[in-house]
């Protein structure tokens, strides 16, 4: 399956490195299960410019988290990287050994996970976990470690006295923010976030997002933000990628994708979140369920649920088409027909 030409958007942000931070080409991940091979991520390609905020959205099981861990080389059995390349600042991570990866990890590229209660070691203090990360990368002076730990906690608005706290002693929001603080320890070039706000209430979600955006503008790192909440991320992201059934369905500048979605799935997602200020519309969902990725359908993977499906959609695989400034995996878009028709 060939992709169209991928785009490098000039977002005008003051990035810290020249050239893209990430260049992903044809990344594929599969799982070995009793039922056969499940192709969880199939031939995903995109670039990420320095300092750019990319949101990846999709429903549960679409492969977005798998994609993230595939990029970070953090897959665990039975998931296996099936192919493709991950060029991080010019180096292909796929070919590196654990040892070589270790020197890049956290210093240039860090990770924030969904539930801090699960992602933080319950038997170690926050401070000890910060220290672990720093010691692993050669920072040995106790003074330096303490100074930096205090600094990052202040950045996220947490009293440094909590360095001595255990994860279960902090509130949910504080835990999440301390995880973000931990990710800032070496001011990396890329921070990957896997649904960091999903475990929080709405108010905490919003304030956390604002905090993240502020940090990004201060320190200039790129962000990949995986979530199922399209409306939340679209307020903050530069570009938006919609995933469906392991593939990229739509990819482009946030405003373009959000205001005029060209893939029927993206449109369906947006329609499911009516605007609170807009006119009253009947609630719609997307009927049906995602395909079984052990036996994906022949043609377009969204065809069984698509309200605008045509016969030709079911015949063969669909490639990504270039429409104005977005990429869309839809035959209608390929003909210059917008999904609004």
């Amino acid at each position, binding site marked *: 399956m060939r992709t169209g030409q991928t785009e490098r958007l000039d977002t005008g942000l003051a990035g810290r490195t020249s050239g893209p931070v990430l260049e992903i080409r044809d990344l594929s991940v599969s799982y070995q299960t009793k039922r056969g091979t499940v192709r969880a991520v199939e031939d995903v390609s995109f670039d990420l410019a320095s300092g750019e905020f990319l949101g990846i959205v999709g429903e549960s099981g679409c492969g977005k988290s798998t994609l993230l861990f595939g990029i970070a080389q953090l897959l665990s*059995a039975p998931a296996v990287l099936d192919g493709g390349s991950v060029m991080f600042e010019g180096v292909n991570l796929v070919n590196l050994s654990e040892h070589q990866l270790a020197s890049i990890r956290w210093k240039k590229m860090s*990770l924030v996970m969904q539930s801090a209660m699960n992602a933080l070691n319950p*038997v170690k203090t926050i401070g000890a976990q910060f220290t672990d990360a720093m010691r692993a990368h050669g920072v040995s002076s106790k003074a330096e470690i303490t100074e930096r730990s205090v600094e990052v906690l202040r950045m996220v608005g947490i009293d440094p006295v909590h360095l001595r706290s*255990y994860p*279960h002693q902090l509130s949910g929001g504080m835990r999440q923010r301390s995880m973000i603080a931990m990710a800032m320890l070496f001011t990396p070039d890329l921070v990957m976030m896997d649904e960091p706000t999903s475990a929080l209430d709405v108010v905490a979600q919003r304030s956390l997002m604002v905090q993240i955006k502020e940090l990004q503008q201060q320190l200039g790192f790129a962000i990949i933000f995986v979530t199922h909440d399209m409306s939340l991320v679209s307020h903050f992201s530069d570009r938006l990628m919609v995933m469906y059934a392991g593939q990229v369905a739509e990819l482009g500048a946030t405003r373009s994708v959000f205001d005029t979605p060209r893939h029927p799935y993206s449109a369906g997602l947006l329609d499911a979140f009516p605007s609170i200020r807009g006119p009253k519309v009947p609630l719609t969902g997307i009927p049906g369920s995602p395909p079984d990725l052990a036996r994906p359908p022949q043609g377009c993977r969204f065809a069984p649920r698509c309200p605008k499906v045509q016969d030709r959609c079911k015949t063969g695989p669909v490639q990504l088409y270039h429409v104005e400034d977005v990429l869309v995996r839809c035959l209608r878009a390929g003909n210059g027909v917008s999904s609004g028709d």
Partner: protein
Amino acid sequence: MRFLLRRAAFFVLTLWACVTLNFLLPRLMPGNPAIALLAKFHGRLSPVALKAIEIAFGVNTNQNLASQYVSYLHDLLTGNLGTSLTFFPTPVSVVIRGAILYTLGLVGVTTILAFILGTLIGILGAWRRGGWLDSILPPVFVITSAIPYFWVGMLLILVFGIQLHWFPYDFAYDPSLSPSLTFSFIGNVIVHSILPAIAILITSIGGWILTMRNTMITTLAEDYVKMARAKGLSSRRIMFDYAARNAILPNLSGFAMSVGFIVSGAVLVEFVFNYNGLGYLLVQALDAEDYPLMQALFLLITVAVLIAILLADIITAILDPRTRSAR
């Protein structure tokens, strides 16, 4: 701290329950066993001794149950465990004192060794999943933990004792020697305890290995392990500091259960090897229907188990900060 207080309270409460159980059991049995005992020893003990037995077991006394109970408790607290019938007129406490160190040494050391070794092997097995260690471990150790302790003991006696003459297999020390704190005596004791220790080790280690492996596998799938990888930590640090430290916690609480089993197995092992520790004493008391000695031994064994459990709880409180917070 509340956690420890609760465990200490449980300790005291259970202790009380066992003491009471010990008191009630002979009195609940159909036909107080002490009566049969009295008949058996009738011509052979002085009337004073017989009277003592009657009082201890509540036969023919005018006291009601409650006051018997009180005097029973009083006796216990003052260390009066009665007089042994097999070793008459030696008091039970003296008899026990002679045997307790051997059992403590054998069972205590072997249990700790089995736990440590088993845990380490379990960690290794989980770390290298799909390797040869992981495929052999489970079936082999599942089978070895089902084998009776005494059978392993017998096998060891046969192979290493009788056939190869490598190790002695009878008694805790050479009967011609008398116990003393000399190196040669202690060395003799150690040599005599090798085969019984191996028997206990072989059968009990399987359980530790398997449970540790299983909890490690579950722990390795946790998010914080993934996070540790993402931070670029070394494999060794992840394995011990992040995975094992969390995986061992359920094992520690399982330790409480297993101590009871190990003690049970130790009784049989001592019997097979004629190893004169508490277990052997228990069987001797059994044969001779020496109820005072039996009761005291049962109580002692129970107390030892409770103490071991309390220690495991203390260690858990040290390792797991979540237990230390108010609940």
